[in-house]
């Protein structure tokens, strides 16, 4: 205990000695100015952050008195209108990070499936200046087409990626069997389809399309009509 006290007294004496020493007076002045400036900045910054007034969003609201009951009724109406935007029938939710596809109706999950989504890699062709990013697009889509025994018409990137020349004849682009037994078109060239590489399901390996296992794909093909909403995130 005595040791602690003596250490404390020694530190105190040293600091006071340093502080009151005449040769350090300019340093002390500078330190006082810096500390004062910092306190001023802290006060100004705090005032600026929490000063009174109304946020631009709230200020834009037209002024009209309303009771709490009015607000409650209005909020209930809005909540109903938002709920009405939700799909009433079955819909698909595609989680590109987790490589999962869930078939849902309301809040009920009807089927949970393992998929393969976009790899996120980039392909650049300096000769033509073209660039492809193999991401699965996010957003809301609808099933636009349903195809049985789809034929993959290989795009340019498929040849470039394989280090092959791009064929002049379009018939040379067709590759049967690569997309599985069925394909559900989402538009802009993106499909939910089958795969030859089933062991890769659950990983991000596709060029943007969503790959599914045979049974899951057959189930979706049978049960989902054209127009079904698909949410991709």
């Amino acid at each position: 205990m005595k040791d602690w006290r003596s250490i404390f007294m020694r530190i105190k004496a040293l600091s006071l000695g340093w502080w009151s020493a005449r040769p350090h007076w300019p340093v002390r002045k500078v330190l006082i100015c810096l500390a004062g400036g910092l306190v001023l900045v802290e006060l100004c910054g705090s005032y600026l952050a929490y000063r009174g007034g109304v946020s631009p969003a709230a200020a834009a609201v037209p002024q009209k008195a309303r009771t709490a009951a009015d607000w409650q009724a209005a909020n209930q109406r809005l909540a109903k209108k938002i709920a009405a935007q939700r799909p009433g029938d079955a819909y698909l939710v595609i989680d590109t990070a987790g490589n999962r596809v869930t078939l849902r109706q309301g809040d009920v999950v009807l089927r949970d499936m393992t998929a393969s989504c976009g790899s996120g890699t980039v392909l650049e062709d300096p000769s033509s200046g073209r660039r492809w990013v193999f991401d699965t697009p996010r957003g809301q889509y609808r099933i636009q087409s349903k195809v049985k025994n789809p034929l993959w018409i290989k795009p340019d990137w498929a040849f470039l990626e394989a280090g092959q020349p791009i064929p002049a004849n379009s018939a040379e682009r067709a590759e049967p069997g690569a997309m599985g037994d069925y394909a559900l078109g989402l538009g802009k060239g993106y499909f939910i389809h089958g795969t030859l590489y089933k062991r890769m399901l659950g990983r991000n390996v596709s060029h943007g399309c969503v790959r599914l296992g045979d049974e899951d794909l057959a189930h979706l093909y049978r049960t989902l009509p054209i127009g079904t909403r698909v949410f991709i995130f």
Partner: protein
Amino acid sequence: MRTIRNLLLLLLIAPILVVAGELSHADLQQENALLQAEYDLAKAGKPYLLIDLQEQQLELKASGLPLETWHIDSYRRWGYPSALTAVDLQSKSSLAEPEREVHVVSAAVPDGVAADKPLKAFELADMPTSYRLHLGNGTDITVHPAPGTWFQHLRSILAVPAWYLSRPVISSWKFLRGSPYNELALAISAQDARRLYWAFSEGTPCLIRLPAAVATARVPSTAGSKRQ
């Protein structure tokens, strides 16, 4: 004597009741503004993020449908990081930004060789757990993983005073540069932080629901003929 006592009690309670009523009113107004903004987003069909500080959760939604929900372990705010109308995510920044692998087509590569070299996919594990999200209205959202070990807890406790001491300096600096500055620091689990980084992409609209007490300070006491 008893009547006088009851009257005194009523006088004591009355201001509390009035404040509670005000709180509720402001809360309802904030709710209305948010619901209106959410309705507009739901109609548009695009995915959007709702940062709900009242419920301490983040909801990624589309057409009013929650696609994924993440729990907020804790949060700190500086200023009023509100977004009662949709604000787009402008950019993300991190010290460990994920990089996509690029395959440049070379004419010198013989047929079929490129196909044998699969590129490393851009996956969830590559996403950072600590990062900043810059919203269009000058609000910054800092995301960092919730502390797990005692050392991380200690570090996060020590970081709090440093955070509150540094924010006024940034506020003053931003004010001098003429730009608004509000910040929200969210602590969520590391896995959720990665998923949020993945799912909340640039251009995605965002809404922020502040806690009720803060809403009282920000929303005017009367509002909304156009609002429903």
